[in-house]
């Protein structure tokens, strides 16, 4: 056990760079996913049938084919097909963004649908333009509903980053596995690795709880003192076939 930890601390710069790759993939992937979820989610509540159809097809496509295959397709198949080659990290960011963006689109759609009808009607009665209505009335309320589901998605995305090891990006898992190979301490290595991911997941959950608090406060909703340290909600909105925030 000491062998592993002494190797761990000897190679701290390398561990840190692995951690950095993992975090980079998580944050950039999450940003890409967020953009895509809003784009697809807003399309799916729009009035144009074409846009709704396109959004539906894209969402079902990226939810239905496994993330694993999407990542491998981008890494192995796309270069032979199109001649473009993506860096492993960029490959990961694109695949995570597309896959989780599709799940996120359902979250956005569900949250917008859950804003009471009366709010739309009041905004129409006040003669607000569609854009104004969305920005000032609907989205601020829907956003509060979205955050818990987005937290779940974010943690799931973090949990997928070890896939980068398979397309030879030097992420945290790659680095720890190299240490394991050198010291032969399998159990310690993997338990340490799991513990690091656990800490990361908790840190991200805490950040998202902060965000939720801020969003609730802006709406004048009560925010309990315990809400910050609360763990994320148990049911994964994402995996549900009907998706959405429930």
């Amino acid at each position, binding site marked *: 056990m000491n062998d592993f930890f002494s190797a761990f601390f000897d190679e701290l710069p390398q561990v840190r760079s692995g951690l950095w790759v993992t975090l980079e993939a998580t944050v950039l992937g999450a940003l890409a996913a967020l953009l895509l979820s809003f784009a697809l989610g807003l399309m799916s509540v729009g009035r144009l049938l074409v846009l709704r159809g396109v959004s539906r097809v894209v969402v*079902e*496509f990226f*939810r*239905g*084919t*496994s*993330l*694993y*295959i*999407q990542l*491998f*397709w981008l890494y*192995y*198949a*796309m270069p*032979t*097909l*199109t*001649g473009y080659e993506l860096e492993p990290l960029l490959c990961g960011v694109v695949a995570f963004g597309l896959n989780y963006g599709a799940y996120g689109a359902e979250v956005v759609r569900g949250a917008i649908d859950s804003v009471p009808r009366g709010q739309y009607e009041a905004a129409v009665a006040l003669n607000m333009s569609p854009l104004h209505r969305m920005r000032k009335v609907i989205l601020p309320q829907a956003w509060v509903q979205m955050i818990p589901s987005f937290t779940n998605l974010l*943690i799931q995305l*973090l*949990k*997928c*980053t*070890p*896939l980068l*090891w*398979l397309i030879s990006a030097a992420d945290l*898992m790659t680095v720890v*596995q190299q240490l*394991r190979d050198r010291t032969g301490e*399998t*159990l310690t*290595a*993997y*338990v340490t*690795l*799991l513990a690091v*991911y*656990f800490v990361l*997941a*908790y840190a991200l959950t805490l950040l998202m709880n902060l965000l939720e608090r801020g969003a609730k406060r802006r709406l004048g909703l009560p925010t309990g003192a315990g809400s910050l340290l609360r*763990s994320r909600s*148990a*049911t*994964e909105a*994402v*995996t*549900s*076939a*009907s998706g959405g925030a429930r």
Partner: protein
Amino acid sequence: MNGFDWNAARDALPLLIEGFRVTLLATVLGTLVAAVLGLAVAVAGRAPSRFVTVPVRAVTEFVRSTPLLVQLVGAAALFTSVEPLTVGIVVLGVHYAAYTSEVYRAGIDGVPRGQWEACRALSLSPRRTWRAVILPQAVRNVLPALGNYAISMFKETPFLAVITVQEMVFEARKYGADHFAYTEAFTLAGLVFLVASYPTSLLMRKLEKRLGH
């Protein structure tokens, strides 16, 4: 740049189907483990003693928050003498049990308090209370959610390829490497997933509606 080779696709298909059987087997058995273990965890989580409930909650939280891939690779490296497919099914089952236990918990919480009180009034034993009154009501409500976890487990079975289980993606990678036809193999594998999972999720949606969710 060599486009899509239809002949290669035709050659790869039988191999993929062969692998798909393993994929299905892993999904079905993994779901079974998750369904049974999750129920056990949920019931243990309601034990009267905190010495039971606190560790149970801590372990489920830990399993839920850490990557499946690391759990798989770690377990495979520790239990080298066990067959990879068995390791894979157990790890998938345990990982998803952490999720299904929460689903069961919600289902159990959904059973009205009066039912518990009635059981007490009839002085039923705890065992009979669970078996004859609480669980039949709870399980009915959680079936759609369990189905959804089965679908999401199905989409995560490719992880098993990493620990050398010869499921569909394993075959796709192998075919891709042998014939330099990754494009065809992965495209087909993705389509098989889409064709299998989309109708299933439509079905689940129908079931959810029917059960009034």
